[in-house]
């Protein structure tokens, strides 16, 4: 009568996953997939390291921000997103393995603290949640 669709748990509402039970790694796995999907058309092999840094920071890092404003994501998800971003930064979209010459923690430090200023998603997640308090 109201022309509404009946939903089933777990569902997404306004882009946020909702569930009766605790949301685990499975529920947030979409974030990592979204990053990988975003990478595909970029053809990272034609990008310089500067271009890759800008894309990592401006585009990949900001994909999970919306979800991070609501939930404290599991550590595994943060790790998964870090590995996608790290892989893109060091080897681009190529399949062939490249050495990661610096630790991810070093890269994600701010520029005035010997890092490259890539956003640390875990810290960002915590700071975003404190906004609600």
């Amino acid at each position, binding site marked *: 009568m109201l022309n509404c669709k009946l939903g089933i748990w777990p569902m997404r509402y306004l882009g946020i996953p909702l569930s009766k039970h605790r949301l685990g790694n499975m529920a947030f796995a979409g974030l990592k997939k979204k990053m990988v999907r975003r990478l595909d058309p970029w053809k990272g092999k034609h990008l310089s390291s500067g271009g890759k840094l800008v894309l990592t920071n401006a585009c990949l890092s900001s994909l999970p921000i919306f979800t991070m404003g609501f939930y404290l994501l599991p550590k595994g998800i943060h790790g998964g997103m870090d590995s996608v971003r790290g892989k893109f930064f060091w080897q681009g979209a190529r399949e062939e393995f490249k050495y990661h010459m610096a630790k991810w923690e070093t890269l994600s430090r701010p520029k005035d603290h010997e890092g490259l200023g890539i956003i640390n998603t875990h810290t960002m997640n915590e700071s*975003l*949640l404190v906004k609600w308090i």
Partner: protein
Amino acid sequence: MPDGNFFNSKYKGTSQFWQGLHKVKHLFKWGALYKVGDGSLTAFWDDVWLGQSPLKTQFPNLFSICEDPTVTVADCWDHGAWSVNFRRSLSSREGESWEELLDLLQSTDLDQEARDDIIWDLDCSKSFTTKSLYRFITPRGVCISASQDVWRTKLPLNITIFFWQLQHNKLQVVASLKKRGWTGEIYCCLCGEVEITNHVFFGCSVARFTWCCL
């Protein structure tokens, strides 16, 4: 901004969102500065409302013997006089600390009309910003001014990153690759010495020749 009851609310059996907030509430204390009105929302020992740190770190010996560590400022205010309950009578040493604390407290008066207000101390606008907290909790260690110089130059970004790698010894020279399990000769293919970053740029005879040509 905060409802004082959040810090006393329960954790178990609540939604995932609420539990997430409880897990990060310790970070809120880093920047929150309480401006006491009637004192009903401010925790006497835990919150920063007098001076730059919570009273429990300013007077640890008094905090260890207090009767109720979660007591609010309003509870301790008894019609114009301050009274805090302790589990036992104070020794002479603790008595001195108590006098000191009373001296500090003397300057503050509770206003029964006003509500407690919270100021965010980490941002100059005095209201909460995610950026200010993010910046506060990210750096572990001191600020190194030399590392900033690379970013101030007006070079293309990929060259800046190359300099950054050079500065922090993160370039793909043989010595670093060896540590990561690369199989190959450790010697420089031009002169036969061990290839480290310094050698590639300054030590190798070919490099020195190039520098001379400039």
